[in-house]
């Protein structure tokens, strides 16, 4: 299972990086979204994987998943929505100002 999760993180980083290097702002936004999935999974993984052990102190389970990375990732997920929203707004504004959605402004012919 560890191998599968690692592979998943690798796939997300590779695809996200590729998108990050594209020329259109929308692709870059998508790339950042994929990268933030990967980053969140990586932080989550730092608490190691645990099956059927949600961090709820209800008495019966003797072993709980590490709650701290979960708390960190939870806010990170929500903030990543905030930054995506900001980036989308920025991209729209830039395309209104420069007349194109190239990351370098306009149609990128510089």
């Amino acid at each position: 299972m560890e191998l599968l999760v690692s592979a998943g993180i690798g796939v997300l980083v590779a695809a996200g990086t590729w998108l990050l290097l594209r020329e259109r702002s929308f692709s870059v936004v998508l790339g950042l979204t994929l990268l933030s999935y990967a980053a969140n999974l990586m932080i989550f993984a730092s608490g190691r994987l645990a099956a059927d052990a949600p961090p709820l102190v209800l008495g019966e389970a003797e072993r709980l998943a590490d709650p701290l990375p979960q708390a960190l990732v939870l806010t990170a997920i929500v903030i990543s929505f905030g930054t995506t929203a900001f980036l989308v707004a920025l991209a729209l504004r830039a395309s209104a100002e420069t007349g194109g959605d190239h990351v370098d402004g306009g149609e990128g012919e510089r």
Partner: protein
Amino acid sequence: MTLAGLPLSILALLLGAALVPLLARSGRGVAAWSSAAVLGIAALAVAPLAPAALAGTVTVLRWPWLPEWGLDLAFRLDGLGLLFAILILGIGQLVILYAAYYMPPEDGLGRFFGILLAFAGGMLGVVLSENLLLMVIFWEITSLASFLLIAYRHDASEARIAARMALAVTGGGGLALLAGVLLLGRIAGSLELSAVLAAGEAVRAHPLYPVALALVLLGAFTKSAQFPFHFWLPNAMAAPTPVSAYLHSATMVKAGVFLLARLYPVLSGTELWFALVSGTGAVTLAYGAYVALLKHDLKGLLAYSTISHLGLITLLIGLESPLSTVAAVFHIINHAIFKASLFMAAGIIDHECGTRDMRRINGMFRYMPQTAVLGMVAAAAMAGVPLLNGFLSKEMFFAETLQEPPVAGYAYALPAFATFAGVLSVAYSLRFIHDVFFHGEPVGLPRTPHEPPLWMRVPVGILSLLCLVVGLLPQSSVGALLRTASAAALGGPPPPYELAPWHGFNLPLAMSAVALAGGALWYRFRGVLFDLHERFAPLVGGPAAFERVYNAAAAAARLLMAAMDTGRLRRYVALLLLAALGLGLHAVAGAGLAPPHGAVIPADPVAIGALVALAVGAFGCAGLHRRRPLAVVFASVVGLIVSLTFLRFSAPDLALTQLSVEVVTIVLLLLALRFLPEEARATDAPRRRRLGDAAIAGAGGLGAAALAYALLTRPFETVSGFFVEQSVPGGGGTNVVNVILVDFRGFDTLGEIWVLALAALGAHALLEGLRLRPHALRAASEADRHPVMLAMLMRPLLPLALTVAFHILLRGHNLPGGGFIAGLITGIVLILQYLAVGLDITSARLRVDHLRLFALGLALAAGTGMASMAFGAPFLTSAHGYVPIPLVGRTHLASALAFDLGVYLVVVATVLLVLSELGRLSQRELRPAACGGQG
């Protein structure tokens, strides 16, 4: 309480710097009087401590400020500090009086006196600091104030260039000094001056002593305009003359030699000190004196003579005999007095004649006899004519050169050199007197000069009188101050010496006589020198060299910028990613990894299927990114798999959050897609570049996968045990993740919702008033904008979903849920409502100002934190207990719930603000079209 006078005096000056410009609106007189009052208050604050300092007691006041950095608000008054405080505050008063008449009447003086007071505050801070770091801070204030004052006539490019040069040199020296001081502090174990002074032995024996010494000397030499850093000072004469009289002769440039005297007990006593300090001082002394005579500009002559005298003081400090240090301190006093007087006299002449060129200003004695007499007294003091103060310290200097020098071979050279320097200084002083006040008639002056207003002559008169008083009655006038200041500089009682205007016929007197006669001859044959200088001068020149270095640095910076700042995002990102890859590899290569542990969770077919789906989603998104709606669908697959992953590995909170964020993100991206072409125009990225991108992406992916695998298969220790144990007894909740968020690490969460609010506000600001042409206008979708089915469905769904959200908010402390998730769910439901019945109707029903919602949420979260402070507990301490609620019964509630409610409100506001703003964007464009269609 009198101790507080030290910081209060500095504070008064700095506050005055802010206040006087305001008061100056009521007139020039108010500006001058209030500035004088501020200086007076500062003097009164220090005065009660002066008797103790004069008696040799060191007064120290210490308030902790940033103790972990060794930075305390620590002040100190000893003899040396007292001497400088008197110079700063005393000459400051005279300069204010003088400037009030000197500055052109159209100048309101507010800015001028403001900066001047700021400088005085900084300078007083330098001399009264016990903490060396604090001293450096004040040191920089003086550099900045000097910059502003040199550039005071900021419409003149010459003034701006001079100011920039002075700042670059003295500011650069300040940086070196900072490094030197930090190093000294490291060696001595403390940044407190008392401790550093006591650790002299250890400092000098330390292997880093040469480095620390060089850095400190760089600071001192740049500030005190020592060769080869002297060139900024003559250019600084672009400042108004009162500034030259104050900063660039009497006080600021003395900060460097002050520093040498201050750290003398620590740093001196080595051959390196002797070589560097006395060598630099000697070169500066001779060079400044030589050039001074050649200057036709009156202030230029004085500037170079100042450089020369600063060189003399440096040389005396470098000679390392106790008596030479006494002579140095004495000359600091004398030079400040006569040079301030000379600058003021030069200012009067400039003021009256409209020029400072000594080839045109001649015969002034007839036009302004009083000023001429005062100027001549001061110039004679500068030349070292007997019965004046300059003579006494120069005699001490001559006597010192006759002592056994610390390095053999100087026995004859030093006295000869000293006499030669004396010859030069007599020559330029003679030029000041003869060329200006006599030597025929003025040449082509714009107006007929006459005596200036009385109050302009008064400060010059006071200072010139002081030259005479100190010269005649040295012991009773400055004897006590000199003794205690020398003791402070030496770090012990000074050797016996006699302060008297007459020491009988001896060798120093003979040297003085030779200097006077030689100086007269040198001046007589100056024509030959001028010719020689004309021929060779262009070969050397500090300012030109400075300009060359400056321009070369600017050109190099431009080249670097052109190479790095290409304006191409892809390049930046690629560089950043490559750097990250390199650093990652470097870190892994250097780290010895622990052996992996065996225990892994076995894979199952479902998980393999999920990975395949994830890969299809991610690569599909990457490969088909130009077909945007499709790419969004692929991305949503990824998000779904990620949230399932969280669920599979025991993170229900994360799964819920990810799922709801996924929904709002997809809505966001789809809304944005309206304004972007559905299919991106294919740009012909070269094949080579695409291959490079693929290589970077592949390497990054492999690296991340390897890192994740290494991480997952290694044993680890977590700090979470505390959180799990304390969750119920400390936080009153069984959902540890939520308790961490709202209680243990509540302060983090508070910061995070601020970030969220700011990101949403930023997006709002970017989108507000934006007009965009929608690209994807399809008739079919327009007709079906608000499907009836959805509208009908929302009627029962809306209250139901809101109830669910509320439930999730309430239970979050104990079961998966909480403010973040509940906020997202509420946001989604309300967005659905927008979609079902339209923006206008929903907005009309839902009368909530999103910005107010932010304010409410943030205030609630912060307020909960502060409420705990009202009970004497630290910020954000949570309380919990069983509360009886009517109808519901005894319910377990934690105060963290209020905090979570704040989180909830902020999340709701974020979602609504961003998405409704994007929705409104579409309406702005659609409405006119729709009207047109119907009409």
